[in-house]
């Protein structure tokens, strides 16, 4: 139990995927202009990340390792993720059109989101078991969504203030991300138990 709690706290706050691990920066900068799309993107990432981590973990331990194909990890994982996203898109469109409306536009973006592949590889590198991997994936996605939501709020605020011209847009967004990373450093070294 404690390990799970520790995984969750670490993944959300201490080693936040965006602010500490530098993964998923493009959607973080690209899809955070409006709060609603930020939350949609977060939900989509959570969906895909959890499923992808689960499937790739099984592939790694069920196929690649027993057959000595460890070197194929990168290529297999990215194909699995791409296929998964495609399938999800088709399935969601069929069974839950409402959800598709909400998540659909974000799904294609996610294939090339390094956070998804990153987490899939990280859980293998860290030697996590399936349960831990899933918890880690969910927590990471929560951390990502949190980062996205906070950032969207900040950017909505920035729209209404007088940012100096050369700083407008990406530069000030990056400075804000830096400030957030600095604030999140307050959690560094948090140990549970």
């Amino acid at each position, binding site marked *: 139990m404690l390990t799970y709690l520790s995984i969750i706290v670490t993944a959300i706050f201490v080693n936040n995927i965006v602010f500490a691990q530098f993964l998923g920066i493009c959607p973080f900068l690209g899809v955070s202009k409006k709060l609603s799309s930020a939350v949609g993107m977060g939900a989509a990432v959570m969906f895909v990340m959890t499923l992808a981590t689960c499937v790739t973990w099984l592939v790694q331990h069920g196929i690649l390792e027993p057959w000595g194909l460890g070197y194929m*990890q990168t290529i297999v994982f990215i194909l699995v993720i791409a296929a998964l996203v495609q399938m999800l898109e088709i399935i969601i469109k069929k069974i839950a059109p409402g959800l598709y409306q909400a998540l659909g536009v974000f799904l294609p973006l996610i294939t090339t989101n*390094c956070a998804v592949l990153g987490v899939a590889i990280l859980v293998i590198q860290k030697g996590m078991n399936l349960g831990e991997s899933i918890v880690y994936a969910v927590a990471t996605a929560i951390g990502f969504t949190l980062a996205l939501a906070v950032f969207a709020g900040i950017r909505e605020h920035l729209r209404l203030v007088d940012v100096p011209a050369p700083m407008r847009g990406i*530069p000030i967004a990056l400075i804000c991300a*830096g400030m957030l990373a600095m604030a999140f450093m307050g959690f560094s070294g948090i140990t549970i138990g």
Partner: protein
Amino acid sequence: MNKLRIIYNGLIAENPTFVLLLGMCPTLGTTGSAMTGMSMGLATTGVLICSNIAISAIKSLVPDRVRIPAYIVVIATFVTLLQMFMAAYLPELNASLGIFIPLIVVNCILLGRAEAYASKHTVSDSCFDGIGIGLGFTLALTLLGAVREILGVGTVFGLRLFPETFGSLVFVLAPGAFIALGFLIALINYIRNRS
């Protein structure tokens, strides 16, 4: 097109980091020092050149509807090759770049160039495009790495410029990466708007 122009285009006019804002994760994640930044840039350049060549070579053999998966396979192959060579011959560098090496696969620069350039141009043009864009990326990463290294610990490529006590550690850590890149881009915006 003039080959030099293609390279200039990638290096400056369409610099993937400062102008197109692609590949932000490795840009931030591997620029703790000028050396790691440059290594990452070169590693990516290598894969980019190879994948650009391969993709433009096979472009007419790939039906449109499966081109994205096909490109991904090509790119992933070269990334895996790079991984193997680095693990075998450059183990230390491999360890310091860590997860960002396999993640070259999802770097949007690669797929972006495959889609926007290699799939429409000749092999040699695509090769030069790879060189140009790759060097542009390398330049950006090296620059950012150098800035962070200098501000953070007072060295550049390990060369000491001032005593370490005067370095602001924050620049080699996560917040400094964002802040340094933010101001670099602002500076570049400012210069571009002036000229």
